[in-house]
């Protein structure tokens, strides 16, 4: 039984989750594009590549905006979080080897103790974000249950992965949970607030264009 679940998560489910993630992302972007063409056609007249990039560049650089400088702790943690979040799964040796075995392509991978560290950092950041949601009255006010669920969904593959790698008790079950939770997370991206990954370039770019090209002002 365990073996069958393993085979499913390791085989078809990988394809399903990748398809939902990529297909879902393309679908979300394309349908939003269509809606914009239909109801906010004006956006296309005001968006400017130059001013979008000018704003985006400031907002993807650590401390590139005044608000980031005013909240140094949040800035550092948020940047480290996003970097570790993406780097760990992509450059984990076990993942690279899996890909190599399946498709015979490979890239640089990081030493395992480094992956360990990055994993702990991601989990730590999730705890920090959760703590911030509880502690800061304004963030608590904005928070709904789904925000905690999203944090849990992000932490889950990292916690279970760490567990399985270190072969702590019941690690083979953890391995299954690791694969399942990672696949769920991937599929959540286009359809939850995690879609900020898809829309960030557009929302920021549009504001950058409005400020830059029309209002002659900076937006960072």
């Amino acid at each position, binding site marked *: 039984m365990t073996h069958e679940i393993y085979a499913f998560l390791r085989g078809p489910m990988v394809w399903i989750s990748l398809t939902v993630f990529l297909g879902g992302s393309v679908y979300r972007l394309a349908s939003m594009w269509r809606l914009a063409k239909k109801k906010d056609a004006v956006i296309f007249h005001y968006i400017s590549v130059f001013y979008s990039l000018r704003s985006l560049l400031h907002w993807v650089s650590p401390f590139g905006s005044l608000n980031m400088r005013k909240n140094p702790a949040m800035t550092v943690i948020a940047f480290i979080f996003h970097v570790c979040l993406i780097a760990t799964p992509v450059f984990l040796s076990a993942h690279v080897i899996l890909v190599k075995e399946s498709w015979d392509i490979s890239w640089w991978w990081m030493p395992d103790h480094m992956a360990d560290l990055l994993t702990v950092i991601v989990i730590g950041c999730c705890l920090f974000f959760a703590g911030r949601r509880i502690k800061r009255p304004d963030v608590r006010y904005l928070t709904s249950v789904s925000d905690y669920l999203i944090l849990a969904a992000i932490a889950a593959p990292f916690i279970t992965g760490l567990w399985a790698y270190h072969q702590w008790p019941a690690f083979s079950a953890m391995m299954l949970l690791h694969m399942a939770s990672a696949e769920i997370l991937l599929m959540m991206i286009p359809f939850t607030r995690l879609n900020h990954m898809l829309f960030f370039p557009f*929302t920021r770019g549009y*504001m950058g264009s409005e400020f830059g090209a029309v209002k002659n002002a900076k937006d960072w």
Partner: protein
Amino acid sequence: MTKHSVTDVIGIPDEGIDKGAEKLTPEKITRVIRKLLDEEGGARLKVYMETCVHCGLCSEACHFYLSNDNDPKFAPAGKVKQTLEHIIKKKGKVSVAFMKRACEVAFTECNLCRRCSMYCPFGIDIAYLMLFVRRICHRLGMVPQYIQDTAHSHSATMNQMWVKEDEWIDTLQWQEDEARDEIPDLRIPLEKPGADVFYSVIGPEPKFRAQLIYQAAVIMHAAGVDWTMPATPGWDNSDMCMYTGDQEMVARLKKVHFEAAMRLKTKRIVMGECGHAFRSVYDVGNRLLGWKMPPLRLMHALEFYYELFRDKKLTVKQKYEVPVTLHDPCNVVRGGGLHEMARHVIGETCTEFIELHPNREHNYCCSAGGGVINCGPPYAKKRVIGNRVKAEQLAAAKAKGAKTIIAPCHNCHGGLEDIVKYYELDMEIKFLGDIIYECIDKGQPED
């Protein structure tokens, strides 16, 4: 600082909202909201609502939040939570009481100043979202009474203050007469075709601050500008309909304004020192009429003054010696990038300039903008309480010696006056035109 109670801030009675609400039923609310979401709620609305990660990084951008002791209800995303978030989640099935509060939030707790868009990492446009709520309120017929009255005036008279056509012309002639005592050959040229400059003002100028028209005439005269004003509707560039959510009226108003300038075949429009009017003509009305940018060259007074000094059209006789500070109005700075030009003019006319902090694009709103001051006396106290940070910012400049606040915007002027009074700051507030008028060589005959 003065103590106040919550009832000064939330649940303030307002005939416009209360009477409007009496006529509503939940069914009607749902119907109106669904129709509006369907017709006008496009990709921007959807993306903004779905992308917000509830991080609260926008909170500290908002003077209402900071001034109300970090009350989450006043955080920008908190205002969305109390309004659109619930409306969209419930697909418009919201109660009358809910809509009353939503109306209060959108009209009296947000100045649409867009400061928060510079603090949100995603650049989510909270002002756009609050305007969407106002649009819903407009369609539901629940708008604060005072501002709705100005919107009615706009639609009946094409100006904000129920000024009749002959009153307008009389006011200009009266100001011309007055000014001629000082400068005998001064004119306020009405209906002069082909003039270089079409000068337009906001409705309250002829009504309450006619001396500003006098001063503008003196500056035009001293600089030798070929200018004119229309004798027909279209002289008023102001626009409260932009803030009540009445976009149809905005388009009508701006059309009349642009067409007056075009009928006179003037080369450019110069507007008096008003921020919201600039937003309306430069950024909003033109779009509603289908122009990407205004159809003819448009200048806010700040840019015009800058040009006059740059081209040495004005000479300063005696600089203004009282130390000044500058309040950067949202709509011409964050909305027009005119901050360095304002500083240039101040450099030409004043001996000592002290910066406010924060400044330029990051300046705090006066809390009068976005039509909030136009919601009238019921909300005056709430508005000044909601901008304690402005008082602190001004007090810091005062401690460095600043005595005069230059506020090149009518709304800011009104808002700052109330703040200065309430917080007992004892500072004087002036338009940049007041300073220029005082300083320049007016070309009076020697006697």
